[in-house]
C-alpha cells in the first residue's frame, strides 16, 4: 500500500472538467466576480482537453439571420421527438449569438462575406477555423485574476455533508502520488459525456479511433449517480453517422459540399427515412441491415479545389481523415466516402442524457451545478450551447453564494478520507491478482454490445437481453473491485472503468424503463418497436440505498409516476 500525499485546497467555486462548458463557466465567473476564488480541475490539460482537442470546423448552434430562438426550440423538439425541456433550450439558445461574438473577440477566425457578415452553413451553422478553439478558451481562462487551473488531476467523487449539500470533491494526480481534496461553496460538474461503454467501431489497435473523446469516461455522471443526484434520459443514446474507419465528422461534406447519402444500388435513400439526426442514423443502419450497403456520401465529381479545401478543413478537426484520403489514394473527387454508424455514446450535448437540472443549471443536490454534455434535457448544445450553459451555471452560482455557509475544513478532511483511503488500498499491486483494467473494459464493452443494443446487435435490444446485460455488468463490477494498480496511471484506468460501469448500470435501467422505440436510429427496442404516446415523458432515475429508482416526469418537469 502506498501513502498518498494529501493536498488540501479551499476555494469558492470548484469546476470539475476544464472543457468547453468548464472554460465557459470559469471565464464568466472571472468577468462577473474577479475576486471570487475559482479552481478549474482537469484530468488532462485545459489547453487541449476534451471534445475540442483536435479542433472543430463550424459552430453548429447559432441563430442565423431570419431565424429565431423559438425556431431553434422547434428544431430541437422535432429532432428529439419531443423529449426536451423548453426552458433549458430557450435559455441556452438566447445566448448563442452573444457567445459567438465573444469567441470572435477572443480570436476565433470566422468565414465572412464581402460585407463582413458571418457565412452560414445551413440554417444554424457558421464556418470557422476552429483548430485552435481550445487554446483560445484556455488563454481566456488564464486571464482570470483569481482563477487557479489544476491540470492533470482526475476527480473521482463529490463530497456531501450531513445536510446532503455538495461541499467539494476529491481526486488524484495522474502523475504523482498525491490526493487532492478541494472544499468549495459551489461545485460545477462539466466532465462531458461518456464514450467507451460499448464495443467501438475499431475494437483492436485503433480502439480509440472513435468520434467522441475516449477520455470522457462518464466520470461526472458516475459521481453524481453515486451521490444520489437525479439523472434524465440516459436511454436517449447517441449514435453518430461518421466516416468509415476514421470516424471523422460528416457535416463538412454533407452540409458544406452538399454530398448525399447513396446506397450500393445507387439509390439516394435518405428521404425514405426522414431528416432528423436519428432518422439519418437509422437510414444507414437499415440500408446495411437489409443488404443494400455499404452506404456512402456521394462526393465524386467535386473539383480539385474543393478537394484541397476539404483536406485542409479535416486537418483542422480530424486529421486522420486527410491522411486516409492521401494514403489510400482514394481522394473524395474520385471515390465516394463510406459512412457507418458509431457505437452508442451517452452525450447530453447531442441528445438529452445527463443531470436533471433547473433552468439555472442547478442539479437536484444542493451546491452542485451541471453544464455541457454532462447535463440533460437539452440536446443540440454543441460548442456555443456548452459555453452558454457554463455561463448560466456561473450566474446561478453567483446568485446562490450568499446563502451558502463555509464548510469547516475538518469536516472536509473527514468526508474525503474514505475516498483517499480507497485510492491507497488500490495502489497495492498484488501479484496473486491477474486481472487488468483493459481485460475488464473489453468484457464490459462486449456485454453492452451484445445485450444492450450495440453495433453487432444492429442497435437492437429487448427485455430478455437487458436482463442478461444487467446480470453480467454486475459481475464485472464485482471483479473491478479487486483490481489493483502499480502506479497513478494504472489507478486512473481503474477509476475510468469503475465510472463507465456505474453509467452502464444506470443506462440499462433506463433502456428497460422506456418500453417503446422513439429514436430508432439510436436504438430499437425489439419487444416494443413503435412509438408509444404514453412515453411522451422524461425517464429519470436516482440511486437510493444502492438501488436505481426510476422516476417519470411530465415534459414540463413535474413528477408523475414513481415506479418500483
Amino acid at each position: 500500500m502506498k501513502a498518498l500525499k494529501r493536498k488540501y485546497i479551499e476555494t469558492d467555486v470548484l469546476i470539475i472538467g476544464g472543457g468547453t462548458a468548464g472554460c465557459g463557466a470559469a471565464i464568466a465567473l472571472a468577468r462577473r466576480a474577479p475576486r471570487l476564488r475559482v479552481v478549474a480541475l482537469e484530468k488532462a490539460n485545459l489547453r487541449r482537453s476534451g471534445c475540442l482537442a483536435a479542433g472543430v470546423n463550424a459552430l453548429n448552434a447559432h441563430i442565423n439571420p431570419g431565424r429565431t430562438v423559438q425556431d431553434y426550440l422547434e428544431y430541437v423538439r422535432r429532432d428529439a421527438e419531443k423529449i426536451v425541456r423548453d426552458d433549458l433550450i430557450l435559455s441556452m439558445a438566447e445566448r448563442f449569438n452573444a457567445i459567438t461574438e465573444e469567441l470572435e473577440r477572443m480570436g476565433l477566425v470566422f468565414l465572412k462575406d464581402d460585407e463582413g457578415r458571418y457565412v452560414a452553413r445551413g440554417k444554424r451553422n457558421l464556418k470557422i477555423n476552429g483548430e485552435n478553439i481550445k487554446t483560445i478558451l484556455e488563454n481566456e481562462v488564464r486571464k482570470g485574476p483569481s482563477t487557479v487551473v489544476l491540470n492533470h488531476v482526475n476527480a473521482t467523487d463529490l463530497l456531501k455533508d450531513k445536510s446532503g449539500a455538495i461541499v467539494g470533491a476529491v481526486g488524484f494526480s495522474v502523475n504523482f502520488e498525491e490526493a487532492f481534496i478541494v472544499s468549495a461553496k459551489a461545485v460545477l460538474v462539466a466532465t462531458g459525456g461518456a464514450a467507451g461503454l460499448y464495443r467501438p467501431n475499431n475494437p483492436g489497435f485503433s480502439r480509440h479511433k472513435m468520434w467522441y473523446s475516449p477520455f470522457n469516461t462518464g466520470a461526472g455522471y458516475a459521481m453524481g449517480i453515486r451521490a444520489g443526484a437525479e439523472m434524465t434520459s440516459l436511454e436517449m443514446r447517441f449514435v453518430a453517422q461518421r466516416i468509415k474507419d476514421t470516424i471523422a465528422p460528416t457535416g463538412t461534406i454533407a452540409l458544406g459540399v452538399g454530398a448525399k447519402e447513396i446506397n450500393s444500388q445507387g439509390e439516394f435513400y435518405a428521404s425514405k427515412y426522414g431528416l432528423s439526426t436519428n432518422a439519418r442514423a437509422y437510414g444507414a443502419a437499415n440500408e446495411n441491415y437489409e443488404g443494400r450497403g455499404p452506404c456512402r456520401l456521394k462526393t465524386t465529381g467535386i473539383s480539385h479545389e474543393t478537394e484541397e479545401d476539404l483536406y485542409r478543413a479535416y486537418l483542422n478537426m480530424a486529421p486522420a481523415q486527410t491522411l486516409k484520403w492521401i494514403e489510400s489514394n482514394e481522394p473524395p473527387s474520385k471515390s465516394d466516402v463510406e459512412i457507418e454508424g458509431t457505437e452508442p455514446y451517452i452525450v447530453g450535448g447531442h441528445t438529452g442524457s445527463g443531470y436533471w437540472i433547473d433552468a439555472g443549471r442547478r442539479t437536484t443536490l444542493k451546491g452542485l451545478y451541471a453544464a455541457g454534455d454532462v447535463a440533460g434535457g437539452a440536446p443540440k448544445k454543441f460548442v456555443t450551447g456548452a459555453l452558454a450553459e457554463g455561463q448560466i451555471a456561473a450566474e446561478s452560482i453567483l446568485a446562490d453564494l450568499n446563502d451558502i455557509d463555509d464548510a469547516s475544513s475538518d469536516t472536509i478532511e473527514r468526508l474525503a478520507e474514505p475516498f483517499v483511503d480507497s485510492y491507497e488500498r488500490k495502489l497495492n499491486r498484488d501479484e496473486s491478482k491477474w486481472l487488468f483494467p483493459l481485460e475488464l473494459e473489453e468484457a464490459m464493452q462486449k456485454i453492452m454490445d451484445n445485450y444492450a443494443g450495440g453495433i453487432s446487435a444492429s442497435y437492437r435490444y429487448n427485455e430478455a437481453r437487458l436482463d442478461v446485460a444487467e446480470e453480467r455488468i454486475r459481475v464485472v463490477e464485482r471483479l473491478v473491485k479487486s483490481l489493483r494498480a502499480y502506479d497513478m496511471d494504472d489507478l486512473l484506468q481503474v477509476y475510468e472503468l469503475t465510472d463507465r460501469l456505474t453509467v452502464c448500470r444506470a443506462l440499462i435501467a433506463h433502456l428497460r424503463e422506456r418500453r417503446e422505440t422513439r429514436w430508432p436510429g439510436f436504438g430499437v427496442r425489439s419487444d416494443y418497436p413503435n412509438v408509444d404516446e404514453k412515453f411522451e415523458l422524461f425517464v429519470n432515475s436516482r440511486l437510493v440505498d444502492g438501488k436505481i429508482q426510476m422516476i417519470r416526469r411530465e415534459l414540463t418537469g413535474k413528477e408523475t409516476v414513481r415506479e418500483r
Partner: protein
Amino acid sequence: MSVRIEKDRCVGCAACVEVCPGNLLKIAPDGRAFVKRPEDCWGCASCLKACRFGAIFYFLGADVGGRGATMRVEIDGEISQWIFNTPDSPPKRIVVDAQSANKY
C-alpha cells in the same frame, strides 16, 4: 490510431506529455518521451502541434486503412505545413493558414 516518437529528435522537453488529452505520453528513464499505450491514442494530433522539434509523427493503424504512410506538421506562426510521406509516391505538403476559415 497512433503517433510515434523519433528518439533521435526528442529532447525530452515533455511538451507533448503536458498536452495529451489522454495522459498517454510519458518520459522514459532515458529522458525521452514515449507513448505508453499506443492503442489508446485518439488521433487528435495535439502532441504533434506541441512538439517544436518535429519528433512526433502520426500514422493510421492498418485496421483503419493504414498502409505505411506518415504525417507530420511544421508550424511557423500562423502557417502550418503538413507533410505526408507515403511509401510509393513523393511527399505531399499541405499548407494551412490559421487565419483562413473552413469554406465548407
